[in-house]
């Protein structure tokens, strides 16, 4: 049971390049999330998914797209990377228990956009 995994761990992009971050979970969780973490800003929700084939915008969705084609995977895409997207990206998944959810986080992807 690997929990939540993310690939890649680290990536450097040039402005305008595109890339996809992959998140995978093996806990059969319905809900999956993408966050970014910046110094002094805490974790901010980019997009989330409440089930296979569904996605929704979070707090800071601009410049990102997501897809949830399979229940265990949640992809985060940057179509045209900008320096402002330099950040650490965390994926999380969760399930219901006792009327609420507990999130489990992946190890993070550090992205540098030059």
């Amino acid at each position, binding site marked *: 049971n690997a929990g939540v995994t993310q690939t890649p761990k680290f990536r450097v992009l040039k402005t305008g390049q595109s890339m996809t971050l992959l998140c995978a979970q093996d806990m059969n969780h319905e809900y999956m999330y993408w966050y970014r973490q910046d110094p002094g800003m805490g974790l901010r929700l980019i997009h989330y998914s409440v089930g296979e084939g569904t996605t929704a915008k979070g707090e800071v969705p601009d410049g990102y797209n997501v897809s949830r084609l399979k229940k265990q995977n949640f992809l985060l895409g940057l179509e045209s990377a900008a320096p402002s997207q330099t950040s650490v990206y965390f994926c999380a998944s969760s399930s219901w228990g006792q009327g609420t959810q507990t*999130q489990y986080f992946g190890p993070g992807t550090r992205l540098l956009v030059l």
Partner: protein
Amino acid sequence: EDKVVQSPLSLVVHEGDTVTLNCSYEVTNFRSLLWYKQEKKAPTFLFMLTSSGIEKKSGRLSSILDKKELFSILNITATQTGDSAIYLCAVERTGNQFYFGTGTSLTVIP
């Protein structure tokens, strides 16, 4: 606007001290409040609180929620160097959204 505010932003204590971390929130349609510990990488779950006045305890850590005054505290007694980390507070609202505070950075000096 929904927000979660943690205080203090940072804290330096000596081993054996007791610390109290604060989290206040203004979030519509509150469902639960969660505490996480973040060391070098991903946040790890500590507590989930849904009801006022009921203390959750795990070893030297404990937490309580006040839904009337909209805050929670996380206490750590007899601190150890391994407690050094960023402690994050998050509030879950209906609609499957989580709002995080900026965290409190705790440093425990031997």
